[in-house]
């Protein structure tokens, strides 16, 4: 059995529109029991059975880790994405039986920290909903800085302000409010850990400034919300299973392997955790590496690929799995 893919049978207990882009989904166990314990920052992979294809998308758990009667996720609708969020928004209704993975945490709090400084952009707020609940319950010291495009798209900003008051600072793009990042980072007491979740541009900006200002990389935690990029279809031969498969335009290599009955390990499906790393046996063509896991050297070597997000263009590709 693949790591992290132990399944939970759940039923959708509620679907709540939050604003014109974001909808919240509540899941309960079908047998009525408690769900597994999780920690703030954890995600689950939701299986979406959409006629003949199955989509598997990771979403952060946003409920309180102190309450495991239900799991809640928030999904931002992406009209030009690969269809997962549209499926959630259009097809998922209360009462629907679904399958989700056990929670996995690739963005956990470092509880040795004296203080937790959190930076969220847009829908990147979701893991912080759970992390702030966890810390508030334990009397932890945290501060959350949240940037959103407009007040109406400040998903849960009102809830957070109500719960935590001045520990939450809001920045609205349409009012040209911007985090004074250098000042913020330079004024944190020793022993602070930094957490950032949002668009790739924001994550890169924060990581770069933190490094330049002397923050050790061990104290900077981030979570990408990366989805597999579409691209030209390509053929792959899988040496161990002896299969030759086609990866469609809107399909990831990992999804194509799964559709062909291969069961590769995975955790994040976003190119950061390293679980699905696969050896390349031979290739004639060009890799399009979209992951954040392999080193530059690995990318150049052409010997490894992360099938959850990376693609290939060329004549032939043989992978080990």
């Amino acid at each position: 059995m693949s790591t992290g893919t132990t399944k939970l049978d759940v039923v959708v207990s509620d679907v709540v529109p939050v604003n014109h882009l974001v909808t919240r989904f509540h899941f309960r166990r079908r047998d009525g029991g408690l769900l597994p314990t999780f920690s703030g920052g954890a995600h689950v992979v939701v299986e979406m059975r959409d006629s003949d294809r199955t989509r598997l998308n990771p979403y952060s758990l946003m409920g309180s880790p102190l309450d495991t009667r239900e799991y809640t996720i928030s999904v931002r609708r992406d009209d030009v994405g690969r269809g997962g969020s549209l499926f959630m928004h259009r097809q998922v209704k209360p009462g629907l039986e679904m399958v989700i993975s056990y929670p996995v945490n690739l963005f956990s709090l470092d509880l040795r920290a004296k203080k937790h400084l959190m930076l969220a952009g847009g829908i990147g707020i979701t893991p912080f909903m759970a992390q702030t609940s966890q810390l508030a319950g334990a009397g932890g010291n945290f501060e959350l800085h949240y940037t959103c495009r407009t007040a109406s798209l400040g998903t849960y900003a009102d809830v957070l302000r109500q719960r935590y008051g001045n520990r939450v600072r809001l920045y609205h793009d349409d009012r040209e409010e911007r985090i004074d990042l250098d000042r913020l980072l330079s004024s944190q007491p020793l022993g602070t850990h930094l957490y950032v979740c949002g668009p790739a541009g924001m994550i890169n900006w924060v990581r770069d400034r933190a490094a330049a200002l002397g923050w050790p990389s061990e104290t900077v935690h981030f979570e990408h919300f990366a989805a597999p990029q579409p691209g030209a279809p390509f053929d792959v031969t899988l040496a161990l299973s002896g299969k030759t498969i086609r990866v469609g335009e809107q399909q990831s290599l990992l999804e194509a392997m799964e559709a062909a009955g291969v069961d590769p390990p995975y955790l994040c499906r976003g190119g950061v955790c390293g679980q699905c790393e696969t050896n390349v046996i031979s290739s004639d063509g060009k890799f399009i590496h979209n992951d954040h896991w392999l080193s530059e050297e690995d990318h150049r070597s052409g010997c490894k690929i992360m099938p959850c997000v990376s693609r290939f263009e060329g004549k032939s590709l043989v992978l080990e799995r």
Partner: protein
Amino acid sequence: MAAKTIISRPIYGTLSPQPGKHHLFIADAEGALAITDMAGKAPPGFFDGAEIDFIPGSEGKHIAALEALKPAQLHIAPSFASLLPRLKQTLANAHMGLRLYLAGTEGLIGQAMQAALEAGMDHTSIQTEHRGSLARRMQCVHCKGITENVTTQPALCSHCGLLLLVRDHYSRRLAAFQGVCINAEDRSEIPPMEEAFP
């Protein structure tokens, strides 16, 4: 550099300049040379934002070499114990972006790191370089007394007088190696005492 034996045995590196504006160096004796060696690799102006706290020891060497680096502050201390209140104060008032560099004996590195860990720093983010004596700071596991500058194997506990095997088992919390009675079964058995940590 000491060989790796068991997992808790600290491993030291070579000081290298880190990005950031504020740099704090703690060194004793030959540790000063790790700082002057590193200075060759540091970008211009690096020591403008640096404080060096130095414990030269009885011979008083290397002070001039550190002065020549023109750090923002150079503080000379007679012992680690006398330096500790200043170090704690500096760490308590520090902000993220302060980088810590420890160089010299294991006892110095371990105790300065202990203060830094208490202040919330992560041991993996602290630069260390071992120079000079291999003498160890040892805790007697029986009476819990700490004996400084242990150079022999076995070693006498300066508190309870037991003859101790100095283990590689290291406590980061105590900044000390563990000493365990070597002749607990038969006190009349006294193995020869050899210099092991010169």
